[in-house]
């Protein structure tokens, strides 16, 4: 009988253990469990954009973890994120004018809050606020700045046509955007091979609103992103005269082939630290 009892007890323990494991899986590993480790104090920070920051992401000073993100909520009535940081009690000497920034570890890595110390003598207390913040850098924005990608131009004000000759248009197609400073100002109207000069004659339809483009501006065929579509970028020159309908842009830069880029990168990377594409406005025909 006592043996039977021990079976029952052991079986009961087994069932309890199984359900405890289930409870652990369902609560601790799926929904966010806000367990902070050790005594900590809470500091608030308001960010314009938190990017991919998640709760329980680390808070670091000089790369050393000093706490974690406790909660992320949208500020009521404002377009900013209210991020509460739980910082270990040990680190209570943070100046109150420190700057909180959202960083990404590596290209694909996770985001965390980095704190850079200020110079103030006063330190942050529980419930204090890090007033100076820098939002997360969105990869898209960075790429956009880098490659000048943007939207498509509306065509409300009518357009005027300018021509440009390229030795190589790459994969540029009719209808591709024409951009200046990353903003679409027109589109490619036609692409024809010149039977005499043996280059590509591209006509660009540019919105009439943008009629102040200097006539020594350069046109270049760029690619949006690493594998994106190609577009024509216009880099303004310094001439006082503006481009007019039917004008031809003299300074052009042909499409960069990715093979060329990589080749240049490998060569220049070994000899000097100069940018791989040799600058955007090298001008002239290649």
């Amino acid at each position, binding site marked *: 009988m006592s043996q*039977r009892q021990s079976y029952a007890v052991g079986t009961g323990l*087994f069932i309890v253990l*199984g*359900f405890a*494991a289930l409870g*652990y899986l*369902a609560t601790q590993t799926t929904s*966010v469990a806000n367990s902070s480790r050790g005594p900590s104090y809470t500091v608030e920070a308001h960010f314009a954009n938190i990017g991919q920051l998640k709760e329980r992401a680390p808070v670091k000073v000089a790369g050393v973890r000093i706490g*974690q993100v406790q909660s992320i909520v949208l500020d009521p009535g404002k377009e900013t994120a209210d991020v509460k940081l739980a910082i270990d009690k040990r680190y209570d000497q943070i100046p109150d004018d420190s700057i909180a920034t959202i960083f990404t570890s590596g290209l694909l890595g996770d985001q965390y809050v980095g704190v850079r110390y200020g110079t103030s003598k006063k330190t942050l207390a529980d419930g204090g606020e890090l007033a100076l913040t820098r939002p997360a850098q969105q990869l898209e924005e960075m790429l956009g700045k880098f490659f000048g990608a943007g939207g498509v131009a509306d065509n409300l004000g009518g357009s005027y046509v300018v021509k440009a000759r390229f030795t190589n248009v790459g994969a540029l197609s009719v209808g591709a955007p024409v951009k200046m400073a990353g903003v679409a100002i027109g589109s490619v109207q036609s692409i024809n091979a010149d039977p005499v000069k043996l280059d590509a004659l591209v006509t660009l339809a540019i919105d009439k609103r943008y009629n102040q483009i200097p006539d020594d501006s350069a046109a270049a065929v760029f690619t949006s992103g690493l594998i994106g579509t190609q577009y024509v970028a216009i880099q303004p020159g310094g001439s006082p005269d503006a481009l007019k309908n039917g004008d031809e842009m003299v300074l052009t830069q042909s499409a960069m082939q990715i093979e060329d880029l990589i080749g240049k990168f490998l060569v220049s990377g070994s000899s000097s630290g100069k940018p791989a594409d040799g600058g955007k406005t090298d001008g002239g025909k290649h």
Partner: protein
Amino acid sequence: MSVASSENIVVRSLSQIGDCGLFLLRMLAAIPRSMRHYRETIRQLWFVGAMSLIIIMVCGLFVGMVLGLQLYDVLSIFGGTSATGTVVAIAIYRELGPVVTALLFAGRAGTSVTAEIGLMRATDQIAAMEMMAVDPIAYVAVPRFLAGVIAMPLLTCVFCALGIFGGHLVGVTWLGIDNGTFWSNMTATVEVVKDVVNGVIWKSVVFGIVVSLIAVFQGYTTPPTSEGVAYATTRTVVASSIAILALDFVLTAFLM
């Protein structure tokens, strides 16, 4: 000759599957009657469940650890080691937890159930029960079947928990992934319904039913010889393993 023997195999396997299905119906019909023997069910739960805990926990720990190690190695190529926790959890919940637990269960508990019932059959204990007007289905088969069906999801949960622990041990404690990142990525990606309920619970319940049915059926219908018991035990492992892996694919397709 060969045509006849292959036909024979087809007919034999079909009749085995049919017998197995009928046996399942007989057991389901006998469940109310076996409620009188609930103590026997608890005893079997102890044998197939609690006694399997050690092997399940050790295997779960090592599966989680090796996953952590492999994923860290591969993900570090992309600088994405922070995703280790997420991938360990998803891999264990959706596939490795239920499947490995079921395979281990078939080897650890299924075989012993088959051998036990087979020896009961070989030593005429089952015939003796029938003579004493004790329903052997209700007294022998159903408690072992129910115990397996109950034990499998619980064992799978324990396996998964230990697997996560193993992945954490390797990833965070040894390889230095940030603890908060490990958990926050996991909690941000793993879903209760899609991963825990569909992966862990449903799969393990189905595997529990299938493995227990095969084990009990093979034991109950074994030829009453020592050779027959040996074959039945082997068949339990082979048939269970194939059924687990095939059903895993079907279940994944349905539950995705």
